[in-house]
């Protein structure tokens, strides 16, 4: 196997006395779709936050494409090819869809204050060039009809899609998705799953997602990491994970003599 796209080594994250993530290690291969699952409060989002730089782990390392990014600021990670979406949509609500996507081009743009303020010439050329990239993504995610709408006025499912579009505008190597399908109906979920698969296959983007919809997780991911109370309890293909007694216990709460070792600590 080549260098993993992302590797977490013994990551430990504490908030005061609460340990959110305890000694979690896993690796994501380039070009794959990985999923993180686990019951509520298992530390999935905290782990994603540690990877994207919103939180800093107290111990352990996060290695992105062979480079240690544990101590980097979020914007430094972004310019290296890391993008994410948020569980509770964190779009720029008062901006249009287009402007939201153009913010995604931030790390690819180079005009400063003066070129921007004088606009005509380099400023305009740059804006037009990036507008073309953004329009490609708009076509890809089928949001042409809302490109000039203010994001705050859009329906929830569309906002989720715009957030994916904004992350794609970064042209990331690794895309982190925090519950891309939460609160969607069956049709919207199918659309979203299709977009995720297309992103992965057409654009070659590695995807790491948190998702509660097991049907989707088992269908589209090639590997699944299961967390429970901040500890990794399983890591394998969807089939392996489904058969894992620890996972069954975490989700269904079965009392089973064989897994007494992971009973309440």
């Amino acid at each position, binding site marked *: 196997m080549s260098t993993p796209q992302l590797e977490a080594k013994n990551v430990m994250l504490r908030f005061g006395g609460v340990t959110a993530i305890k000694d979690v290690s896993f690796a994501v291969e380039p070009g794959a779709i990985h999923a993180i699952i686990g019951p509520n409060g298992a530390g999935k989002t905290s782990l994603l936050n540690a990877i*994207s*730089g*919103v939180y800093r782990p107290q111990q352990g390392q996060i290695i992105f494409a062979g480079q240690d990014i544990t101590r980097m*600021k*979020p*914007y430094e990670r*972004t*310019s290296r090819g890391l*993008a*994410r979406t*948020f569980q509770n949509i*964190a*779009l*720029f*609500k*008062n*901006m249009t869809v287009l*402007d939201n996507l*153009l*913010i*995604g*081009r*931030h*790390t690819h*743009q*180079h*005009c*400063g*204050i003066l*070129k*921007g*303020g*004088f*606009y005509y010439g380099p*400023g*305009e050329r*740059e*804006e*037009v060039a990036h*507008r*073309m990239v953004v*329009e490609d993504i708009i076509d890809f995610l089928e949001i042409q009809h809302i490109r000039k709408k203010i994001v705050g006025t859009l329906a929830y499912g569309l906002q989720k899609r715009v957030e994916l579009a*904004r992350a794609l505008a*970064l042209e990331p190597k690794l895309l982190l998705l925090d519950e891309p399908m939460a609160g969607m109906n069956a049709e919207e979920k199918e659309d979203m799953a299709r977009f995720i698969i297309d992103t992965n296959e057409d654009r070659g983007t590695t995807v790491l997602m948190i998702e509660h919809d097991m049907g989707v997780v088992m269908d589209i991911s090639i590997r699944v990491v299961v967390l429970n109370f901040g500890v990794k309890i399983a890591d394998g293909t969807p089939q392996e994970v489904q058969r894992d007694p620890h996972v069954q216990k975490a989700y269904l709460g079965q009392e089973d003599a064989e897994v007494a070792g992971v009973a309440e600590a």
Partner: protein
Amino acid sequence: MATIRCGDFKTSYAKDMAIFDSAFARWCLALFLLALLTVPLYASSYWMDVTNRVGIAIIGAVGLNILTGFTGQISLGNAAFMAVGAYATAYLGAHLPGLPFVLTILLSGFLAAVVGMVFGVPSLRLKGLYLAMATLAAHFIIEFVATHWNDVTGGVAGVSVAPASFFKYSLDTDSKLFYLIFGLMFFLVFFAKNLFRTKVGKAFVAIRDQDISAEVMGVNLFKYKLMSFGISSFYVGVAGSLLAYQAKYISPENFPITLAIDYLAMIIIGGMGSILGSILGAIFITCLPELLRLGASSLSGTFPSLVGLFASLKLGVFGLAIVLFLVFEPDGMAERWRKIKTYWRLYPFSY
């Protein structure tokens, strides 16, 4: 020729991203600007003074709006940053008399920008009311310096300002100053408008709407917040510099904390996060007292006591206007203007 847009017929992204929808809008603006240039030909010296103050207020309000309306960093230090620009102009005028006024104004603006950035450092940690307190502290620190650093600022007594000059030519009257103020105003407003069509401006708005996700999208928060403080203070400093030229004599009394609040009122009434809003708000807040005075003096024949009441009346109407705007049009005059335009676009078939 289509005067009002009835559909979308753009054929290139550059056209789609232009500031003005149609050639008609551009012509209207050009005609308006031409008309504006003729103002000194017939305006009385009193209205010339008011017009110049409007121009200065527009520059200052656009500056404050960049910081507070677009980047979401509330600031009560703008009167102080204005003072920095004004005192710099006075100092440069006295000590470097040969310096062309354009350079003086630029240097004053840059000095204000540097001071603004220094006081903007706490913005990385502080938000909202806490940042308002920190910038309020900036106001009092600068005010203290202005009243005590006698060699430069003339202390409480103040200092006189040499007129703006370029070699032998000097802008010593309000009508000559008018062209300088409105030239700069037009340029700076246009610059700001462009800024928000490109990378830096969009990053500012992103910080306002969602700072965590802005950082995850690759925006260096600290750098861009400081940049916003810098650009904003530059505008405010230029406004201060022009104010010094216009007032000819400045003292700490020209820059009270109520001036900072006036500017906040301009952008709130005009429209936070809107260039047009800053312009409308600046015109409204600067002209309101003049209109009230006009009204009061025209009624003084019938109600002589009204003139005596004027001072309190002015504050009352001022406060009332702000409250009414906050209640009925929280998005400001710019939003109201947009609604009027939308209404007329489809008139008389507004369904």
